[in-house]
């Protein structure tokens, strides 16, 4: 198995620590809030307020379960439109009270179902992209596992994008890539390699700003050390972002996403 496929496999492990665990480990006084005020509460998106060493923050995460039962609760980490809308509601709340936002990303993608289409999955993600790009408070997104396409990006238009060593982020799954582009589902490993979806590749492409090491024995066996590193990094970075004048913060976020694209003219 090549290194890219290894990361894909590790990122998807059912034992891998999930968003709720990272939130509990990094922050104190987490208080979960529910619902999008429009339709429902989406179990795939967990969010609320917490404290980071005394600093109030808004935390949002895409939640995966460790068992079938848990996964039914959180829809295997595939948000419906109401999940994106709940997240946006919490982000606007954070903006109002000048709290930074930290999002934890771990999804194979936004849910593909009849209800999701009826309630505007496309609109929900689109709205988040636009609103996050101009949210007047710092945002940091941390990819802790899978980063599946628009479903991940919908919570990741941030001032800084971080990733754990075996996190992945791609426009579609390597399985989808191989079967759509090559009509050959056996070429998954080759697809994973080509897609440049690992933390190292993404750091090189400037899609990710910072990568955090995972322990040799596996994150599922010991994630406190990695969580500790994340906490330290948040404690250093958030005050820096908060000190920036609002216009500068927004301009930097705009420039961060404005740069993407390779073309000639």
């Amino acid at each position: 198995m090549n290194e890219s496929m290894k990361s894909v496999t590790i990122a998807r492990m059912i034992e891998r620590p999930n968003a709720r665990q990272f939130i509990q480990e990094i922050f104190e006084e987490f208080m979960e809030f529910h619902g999008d005020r429009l339709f429902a509460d989406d179990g795939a998106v967990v969010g609320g307020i917490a404290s980071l060493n005394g600093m109030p923050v808004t935390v949002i995460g895409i939640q995966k379960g460790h068992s079938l039962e848990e996964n039914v609760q959180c829809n295997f980490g595939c948000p419906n439109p109401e999940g994106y809308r709940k997240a946006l509601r919490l982000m606007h709340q954070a903006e109002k009270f000048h709290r930074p936002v930290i999002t934890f990303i771990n999804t194979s993608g936004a849910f593909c179902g009849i209800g999701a289409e009826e309630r505007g999955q496309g609109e929900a993600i689109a709205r988040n992209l636009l609103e996050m790009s101009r949210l007047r408070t710092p945002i940091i997104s941390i990819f802790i596992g899978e980063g599946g396409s628009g479903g991940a990006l919908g919570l990741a238009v941030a001032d800084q994008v971080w990733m754990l060593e075996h996190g992945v982020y791609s426009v579609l799954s390597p399985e989808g890539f191989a079967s759509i582009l090559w009509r050959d589902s056996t070429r998954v490993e080759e697809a994973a390699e080509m897609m440049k979806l690992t933390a190292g590749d993404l750091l090189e492409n400037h899609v990710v700003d910072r990568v955090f090491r995972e322990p040799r024995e596996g994150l599922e066996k010991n994630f406190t050390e990695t969580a500790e590193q994340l906490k330290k990094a948040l404690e250093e970075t958030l005050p820096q972002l908060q000190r920036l004048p609002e216009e500068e913060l927004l301009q930097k976020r705009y420039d961060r996403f404005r740069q993407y694209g390779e073309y000639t003219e």
Partner: protein
Amino acid sequence: MNLFGKKSYFSLDNPEDKRKNDKRRQQSEPSIPDGMWIKCNTCKMIIYKKEVTEYKLCPNCGAHFRMSPQERIAVTCDQGSFEEFDREMLPANPMGYPDYEGIIRKAQDKSGIQEGVVTGRCRIEGNAAVIAIMDSHFMMGSMGSVVGEKVTRAVERATREKLPIIIFTTSGGARMQEGIISLMQMAKVSEALGRHDEAGLLYVTVLTDPTTGGVTASFAMLGDIILSEPKALIGFAGQRVIQGTIHQKLPEGFQRAEFQLEHGFVDRIVHREELREELGRILRLHSLSGDCKEEGEWK
């Protein structure tokens, strides 16, 4: 720069080139094959090609055939008013996808355009606007760096010049061959639209068949006013993907324009023959009350 060795570029004003491109298109488009007769994919009727007008409608059932940007400009913009932006922009190969250059060249030959979107400015019934028109004949209108960059520049230009922007969407989604960079285009275009919005300017989307994936999940759904052509397929996930996920039969009319109207995601469904007049009216009504009247005028 002409990286892919393509010798000729189409010109929107040159009828000779247009004829050539039309011919090329007809050879490659399954719904309108070359020859005297064509078959409508909707009503399955064999129809005489000369009966199909510049609006590209089925004379029997009224189905809206897919259009090229050139054809769209001809029925939408005031004659001779269209000025193209960034015509020479070509994609690089960010992921090192095998023979991407060859794939692009083939798409160029098939569609007669350089990339999946044509942008520019024009007048519609006398009203100035920036306009972007995607082309489903070019790699299914997929959004890679060039589509993202051209649309973003068009939006930024509209913001600078205080003009409304109209985007005709048609897309299968992100350009997979460009990898993660194609996903980032969604954020790039959306943030530019955020600034256009903050400047109090008008954004109209016209959804055409099909509009799906990353384009739906970004600029297609962000219009102040969202129009759609009748029966256009509009959705986030592809129908086969949904079926593969839920193992259920999809309801009749699922993800069509009428479905989106019913669920509150489209403002109006507009017949193609009425589109120019409706766009003209929307632009005029906004120019009367907005900032775009004085400063947005261009000569």
